[in-house]
């Protein structure tokens, strides 16, 4: 894991206390944020370029799907 991604994960963790005052749903969402950031940790790992590219694509697809779900929900679809 490179230093930037370590930093990103630490940033996600530092956000958690600000948004988790005890509500279970907030904890779940906070965990989602950290998971989202944590998922990025394998991107750019030196060495296996093809595996890294595959991981990157998988993460991209998941995020784009999240965009679609949230946008559809917001529009009331």
């Amino acid at each position: 894991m490179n230093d930037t991604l370590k930093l990103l994960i630490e940033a996600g963790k530092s956000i958690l206390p600000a948004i988790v005052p005890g509500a279970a749903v907030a904890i779940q969402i906070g965990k989602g944020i950290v998971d989202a950031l944590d998922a990025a940790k394998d991107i750019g790992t030196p060495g296996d370029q093809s595996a890294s590219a595959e991981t990157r694509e998988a993460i991209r697809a998941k995020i784009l799907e999240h965009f679609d779900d949230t946008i559809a929900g917001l529009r009331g679809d």
Partner: protein
Amino acid sequence: MRKMMIAALAALCLSACATSGTGKPPAPPSPIEQLAPILAPLAGNHVTAEAIDLAFAASDAALYVVDFMRSVGWITDGSPKAIALADAAEKLKGWLVVADTAQRAGDVLKADGAYNKAAAAYSLILKALER
């Protein structure tokens, strides 16, 4: 709590944050503050693949916050606020994809332009959340 969440999101934003003078000795930068310049294309530099990766991750995190606000009733699906957020998210998604595609193709100018538009769309999301 809503303001705290928006502040946390703003700290994860795609643009660089300037520090303001408070008269107190400067505190060591938080991980979020250290991230800001990495997420932002610095003047004279071009958007990197890593910056785009982080922008996707930060946007994903923002979506989780929006999901949370919907789940607790702070945002009503189909309301004007929700539609404004959906429009901004649609723009953010579109420009991130354009920036990513252009960066991979080596078209740095197009990647820079799209990245900046993605950053503007991200700001629109923050503004919509503040309302």
